[in-house]
């Protein structure tokens, strides 16, 4: 009953989706871990990355410029958002932070809808990555293979920033105890701004990389946001390795379930999340005591 080439190609799809989810979730989780703010506009950041890249692509025709423009635009947007609004919410309860980022997310989606309408837009993959590649036993779209590689490189870069630089050390220390970092004489608010920018950029980058795979609509970030939440709950809030592990698990669950019946993809995802919550309430790689 199982068609093996189909199964393997779904495994690859799961890997590509999982890698993307891992990247987006890393952005969400480092922002939450450092700033203590859950950014409900994160899905909108993903969507805006796609649209910013789309605009750059229509003007230049270069996919690489589109990727750079998409990521940078969202990073700047993230920094502005943090400076103008989010920083006023650090001292306010979690609920207010959720409400304001939720509202901002809606505003972003509606602004994009106003400019680009609800019609879907297409960004083609770069010429070199078009077509299909033979893996010997099956043919697979070249760009999707490339997505796995590109995202792996991006995650590697994020890893280097987080684990091999001074800033990364401060960020990781801030995830553990931001009050302590503050009292060590480090300006945590400047770090917060940078982290928000990097986290948003991760989503924006994923948004433009994903654009050739799934066509762009203003609502493209909504489902992604929900999937990211599941990833973060499975992996553990504030944990970068947890986001990667959770992303890959979620991607494979969605792809493999979809092979049998797409209607059950979310049910299975939810079942996995419930299982993790029951067995390891703090997530697979999360630490206890952080809410």
């Amino acid at each position, binding site marked *: 009953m199982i068609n093996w080439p189909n199964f393997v190609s779904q495994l690859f799809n799961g890997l590509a989706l999982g890698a993307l989810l891992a990247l987006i979730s890393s952005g969400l989780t480092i922002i*939450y871990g450092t700033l203590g703010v859950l950014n409900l506009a994160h899905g909108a950041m993903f969507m805006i990355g796609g649209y910013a890249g789309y605009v750059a692509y229509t003007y230049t025709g270069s996919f690489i410029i589109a990727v750079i423009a998409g990521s940078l635009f969202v990073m700047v947007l993230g920094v502005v958002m943090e400076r103008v609004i989010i920083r006023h919410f650090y001292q306010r309860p979690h609920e207010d932070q959720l409400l304001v980022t*939720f509202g901002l997310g809606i505003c972003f989606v509606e602004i994009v809808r106003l400019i680009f309408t609800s019609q879907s837009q297409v960004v083609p993959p770069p010429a070199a990555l078009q077509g299909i590649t033979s893996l010997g036993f099956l043919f697979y779209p070249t760009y999707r293979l490339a997505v796995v590689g590109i995202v792996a490189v991006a995650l590697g870069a994020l890893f280097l920033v987080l684990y091999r630089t001074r800033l990364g050390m401060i960020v990781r220390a801030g995830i553990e105890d931001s009050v302590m970092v503050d009292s060590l004489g480090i300006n945590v608010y400047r770090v917060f701004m940078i982290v928000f920018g990097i986290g948003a950029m991760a989503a924006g980058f994923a948004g433009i990389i994903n654009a050739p795979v799934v066509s762009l609509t203003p609502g493209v970030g909504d489902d992604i946001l929900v999937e990211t939440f599941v990833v973060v709950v499975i992996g553990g809030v504030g944990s970068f390795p947890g986001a990667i592990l959770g992303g890959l698990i979620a991607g494979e669950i969605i792809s493999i379930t979809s092979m049998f019946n797409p209607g059950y993809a979310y049910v299975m995802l939810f079942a996995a999340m419930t299982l993790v919550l029951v067995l390891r309430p703090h997530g697979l790689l999360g630490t206890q005591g952080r809410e």
Partner: protein
Amino acid sequence: MLKQRPFLIETLTAIGLIAAPFVLPLLGFAPNTVNRILVWGLFGLGFDILFGFTGLLSFGQSAFYGTGGFVAAYLLTQAGFPYVLLALVIGMIAAAATGYLIGLIALRRTGIYFAMITVAIAEVFFFVEFNPLSDYTGGENGLPGVPTPSFNLGFTTLHFTTGWSLYQFLALCYFIGVVIALRIVRSPVGAIFSAIRDNPLRATAVGHNIHGYKLAAFVIAAAYAGFAGGLLGVLQAFMPPDAFTFDTSGQLVMQTAIGGRGTLFGPLVGAAVWLSLQDFLQATLGLGAAWKLVLGIVFVLLVCFLRRGIVGGLVDLYGLLTGQRRKAPDESAAQDDAVAAEAPPARQTAAAPMPARQRAGADPSGPILQAKGLTKRYGGLVANSNIDFTVNHGELRGIIGPNGAGKSTFFKMLTCEVHPTSGSIMFEGRDITGMNVTDVCQLGLTKSYQVNQLFAGLTVRENLVIAALSALRGKFKLDLFRSIDSIPGLSEQVQHTLELVNLAARPDTPVSELAYGEKRRLEIGLALATSPSLLLLDEPLAGMSPRERVETVKLLKSISQGRTMIIIDHDMDALFELAERVTVLQEGRVLVEGTPEEIKNNSTVQEAYLGGVHGELAA
């Protein structure tokens, strides 16, 4: 607020609902819009109990709205069930049952985790409705043909059809919903909901099973959502599948925040603003799809600048306008307090000592607490090491020790806030090792905290009520419809505690307006109001001025009558004056134990303080 007139809010709601069909058309409201507002308002009543009162922000209410709606609609259209109202009630029960099961999972975590899990759950419901259950729910087509209610009264048949006719039915449902919601928020359970919102840690510590209460709030919200979902089908003669979308949950959250959380009427006002703005922006201004952007911006601005929404803003404005009237008694109260501070003995003696609760099986003599071999390790750090500690009934024990001696850790273990690495704790002959802090408090052992843990959004009296409720009602009881004033002994116990901690002059002051010394006394009052037989006090004198210390020492003496107490403090003069015996902790061990006289003259104690940390003795 408005407490002296018991049915004022109910009466005003009824008048408003009766007047609406005559007034609202003049303002340009179509009957269908008003009906939709009522359904959203009813949906929001439950959500406000969950979010505004209990502090749990769920983004997944669409799951219950859709469940209730589709169960009712399925019964009425597919199953040929003839009774509309009964179908609505069955839908509500189905939603509540779903809420119970989902709550068991979602409430395993709090804060943002809870919000994320509810989002994910709601999304699953949406997919389940569309795919596995599409034979029952009609998938993306929904269920058309939901009938409107009619009631055969024998001599005549009441039939509610559309427009203002259906309004009568919806208004009655909303009114009943408001009456029930008001009873709930005025019940002891409602008081505990607010306590959970303000300080879940302390609500647990004063002996309430907050997990049970959170689940109750979640189920209540689900029940309201389910009933409102059923009404949506009745209203539209069609059960739309988009009841299950994330947008539904989002709109509910936004309407509640716009109208004002924690006000019950906020969601109704928010829905009115939302729907009328939508009509206005779309139809009158011709903005087309941009209406949602405008509403989004309005929402963000309100969250930024008007935290309590429109209704909350109006209440604050009303308070500001009538402020002068309210201010006057406040000031006299403050003066009163100043007078009290200067001539305290009269007031102090007026308050009779509050007896500890008599519990079955309590032996009035001999040891009340026995700790054996108590050890606590945090990784490599040993905070407490092999502590043996016994306190007898009626004793007043002092504990001193340099900073870092492990005093607070020791207290946390005794009250079961943290569990020992090894060793055992016996309280009144019962092994309490490994129990949780709520159960231990229910047994009669609680503590006041070194750093104030108050319910900051509530008044002094409300704070004490929450603590006293745990003593009078146990750790969990669902007396949702009982008035809080009808609990025997509650007002006496609260009044008594107020007098004991010398706050009787300002019971209705919000905690945020209290002076530091008053907060400290309330902190002790919270522990005291649970009528513990063993009361632990962690640095009750910390941060107080010398005069406040004298006051507080008097207070401690008066509450120690008929009760066992253990006090940690750095103020040795005070402690030597109060305590019959003193235990000295150093580096996680018991250094020495004896009468104050023995401790003062003990050379190892002098060594520990003078040789170890200079200046501690003077502090």
